[in-house]
């Protein structure tokens, strides 16, 4: 796809749109925090500054440095994932966090970047550069993807695991899979579900997954949230209820309104104009990253940028489908809009990488 933008480069557009989205997210968080206290807003402000700093640092790195350290990056976060089982803090049933002083870190967010870099590195250094890969050739990239995914499933954190799988699969699909290999992967996946279910996942985790998946067993859990979210979005109507006047979120009908359901709050308070504006910003950013990716000559840079675009894309798709009631609720944040240190930093790192690699 070709874009003709006369005055600004894709790079400038990307920066501008990201800044706008980031501001909208902060404003929304401020609105939600007015009644509950500004604690979350202040924390997020710190995270955004940290994120901007990260962007500044990463975008100034030499692209080669990034490529050379991608394996280190991947292994580092994979190790952290492993360490979670020893030192991890359990929050609402999932062992996904490290508590370092006042800061909680969620390695499963950062591993997304690790996987993107690792897969880009693998495919870039594959001299053959085929159109499609057969099953044997796919063993390595699949392993690179599935090992961290398994670690996340074991936490258990289904939402994150699903996004990780989707991001990795997007890269693998972009690079091509032969029909035979695709068939084999599907068959193996189907067969492995049963033993994986019995061996890897403990009973209490299964229960959690059941209730997570099946809305009918827990009407006041998952489906209740989905309904309240749809009420929040719908009640915003065309022009919204106004800044900080979202009754659904302010009165706690809407759960997790500053994290996973932040988009619902925007939709409630700003109406259709606000929700579509955010949607437009988000998808434009993704398209710009994709455009930058296609313009790059270097294979590593192109694949990594594509991976970052895929990461933003799948997060947006899952989150918005979830809050608008098109999909069951699985906890996935909307980058730049949802509150959360690790996910915000991950998104900024992604932007930083794109800005760094575009110079290649």
């Amino acid at each position, binding site marked *: 796809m070709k874009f003709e933008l006369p005055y600004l480069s894709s790079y400038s557009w990307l920066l501008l749109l990201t800044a706008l989205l980031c501001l909208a997210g902060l404003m929304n968080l401020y609105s939600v925090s007015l009644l509950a206290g500004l604690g979350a807003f202040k924390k997020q402000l710190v995270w955004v500054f940290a994120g901007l700093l990260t962007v500044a640092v990463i975008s100034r790195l030499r692209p080669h440095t990034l490529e050379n350290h991608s394996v280190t990056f991947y292994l580092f976060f994979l190790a952290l994932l492993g360490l979670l089982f020893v030192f991890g803090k359990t929050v609402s049933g999932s062992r996904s966090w490290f508590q370092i002083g006042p800061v909680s870190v969620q390695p499963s967010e950062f591993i997304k970047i690790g996987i993107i870099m690792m897969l880009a590195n693998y495919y870039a250094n594959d001299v053959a550069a085929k159109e499609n890969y057969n099953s044997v050739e796919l063993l390595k990239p699949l392993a690179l993807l599935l090992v961290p995914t398994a670690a996340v499933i074991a936490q258990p954190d289904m939402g994150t695991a699903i996004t990780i799988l989707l991001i990795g699969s997007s890269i693998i699909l972009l690079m091509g899979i032969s029909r035979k290999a695709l068939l084999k992967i599907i068959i193996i996946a189907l067969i492995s579900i049963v033993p994986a279910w019995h061996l890897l996942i403990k009973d209490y985790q299964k229960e959690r997954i059941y209730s997570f998946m099946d809305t009918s067993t827990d009407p006041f859990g998952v489906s209740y949230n989905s309904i309240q979210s749809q009420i929040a979005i*719908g*009640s915003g109507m065309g022009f919204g209820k106004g800044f900080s006047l979202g*009754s659904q979120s302010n009165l706690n*009908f809407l759960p997790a309104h500053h994290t996973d359901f932040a988009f619902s709050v925007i*939709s409630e308070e700003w*109406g259709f104009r606000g929700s579509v504006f955010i949607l437009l910003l988000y*998808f434009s950013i993704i398209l710009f990253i994709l455009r930058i990716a296609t313009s790059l000559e270097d294979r590593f840079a*192109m694949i990594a940028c594509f991976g970052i675009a895929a990461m933003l894309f799948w997060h947006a798709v899952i989150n918005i489908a979830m809050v608008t009631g098109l999909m069951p609720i699985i906890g996935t944040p909307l980058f730049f809009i949802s509150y959360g240190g690790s996910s915000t930093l991950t998104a900024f790192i992604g932007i930083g990488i794109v800005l760094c690699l575009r110079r290649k």
Partner: protein
Amino acid sequence: MGFLKHRFTIASSLIVLFFVVFSGRLFYLQIYKGEEYRNFSERNILRALELPAPRGRIFDRNGEKILYNKPSFNIRVFPREITDVEELAEKLAEIINVPEKKLLEKLRKIETLQSFYPVTIAKDISREELLLVEKNKETLEGIFLEVGHKRFYPHGEAAAVLLGYTGIADAKEVRTYGRIKAGNELGKMGVEKVFDSELRGTNGLEYVMVNAHGKVISDSVATLLPARKNREMVQGKDIHLTIDAQLQQFAYDALGKEKGAIVAMDVKSGEILAMVSRPSYRPEHISKELSPEERRKTKKKKSFSLLNRSTQGTYPPGSVLKIITAFALLEEKTADPKSSVHCPGHYFINKKRFNCWREEGHGDMNLYKAIVESCDVYFYKLSQKLGVDGLYPYMKKFGLGERTGIALPEKRGVNPSKAWKRKHLKEPWYPGETAILAIGQGYVTATPLQISVMTSAIANGGIVVKPKIRKTDEKKPLRITGGGQRLDAKSVSFLKKALYGAVNEHRGTGIYARSKITSVSGKTGTAQVVSAKFESTEKRFQDHAWFTSYAPSDSAEISVTVLVENGGSGSVAAAPIAKKIIETYFKLKKERDEVRIAISE
């Protein structure tokens, strides 16, 4: 690397596709279904709490409270917040003294309302029930307690029929009165109904916000929903009646176990001092919420009646009507008061025998004596000259067959004439019917209040006053409609003498009303319920006993009319009661004067 470019194009198209899908979904939720969700979100958070306005109090003429409010606790429910009707009914049935089946039925109906206005499911619960509900509040979905106002009647049955009662407005009443909502309380009978619009007041309305846990966050209403305004509660207005509560109570007790009615009234102003109807009912039997079946059962009880016999009971007036007949005879110059008629105990009209109540006869009777001794033959004979249409306008002048205009539901009774009979019975008038009409039998019927107005008109010197139940500052008595001129003074003063005689002369029929405290004038009446030929000792076939009177005889203040249903002779059954009430009136007056003097000194 062309295939990669191709794949990028596919990816870009996919992104655009998802953008379109999501925008469509948002359009559907926010624009297409937006209003629905907006309503839903408001109901989600909004509870409209009604603060019931206490009804106005009712005072008697001396400032005594005769109807006021006591706090009561009601269980109410928010229809929209019920999730499981069966479970709620089961839980409630364990706590309060209402069968589960009944609760379930009620809750099912309430649930369909889906309103965010609460509905009452149990009124005036006991202290024990109150504590249990309070304790189990968390598990009772949508249930809350309301501090309401329960009507309290210090005089119980004695004033119940007059004061009436309130109830929950039904659909028809909501349509008629407009300003009330279903479930609101309004006056259904008696004074409560007549002055309802003043007594009722305006219920307050308070919108409160609740969070997902039903917890009230009241102070954020204004900011989140500026369109929803609270409404101040306005108390109902107090009403002052002309009733004397102590006289009312005394009169009620004076009737004893008999059925009947008593009206005591200020003869000049028309103010009702006491208005009694028996049987009455215990107010608490009405205010408690009864099922239609229970209500039917209660109504069947002999000791239960909602009817105000003073204004809604119509009876043949019997001999008390002779006051009007005599007045007509005088006015029409049909009778010369000096000339006399012989009473042998019976009189023939067209070979039909009409008996006097005194079988052996009264001997020679003039008009004065005929009233004092209540001779029937005298009136039989002279009524033939007067004719029914000669009597009709005088009956009308005294207010018979017309509403008195009191602010209470009342019946008109019947003031018959030739035209009336043609119209209603499609028959001509027979002369014999004039004879029995002249002594207050036959087609004529009147309410005790109408008789009271008639007697007051004689007592006050000829003014047919409009009876009043509500105390106003107006001093001028209101004349009744239909002429409205003062009755002829000469005829009135003749009747006054005769009515004094009826009580105070040796042969008077009203001697049992004679008092040592004051001078009493009056007229007895014994109205046949069935034909005289029908001999029966059964109570319901006994005559109605009337006595209508006033005192003091020369400067009348009060008129007292007593009707005892199936009481027998007016002289024996009704006159003594009237005397007691008159005496009590003067005793109370003296006591109050003494207190007033003591205070002023």
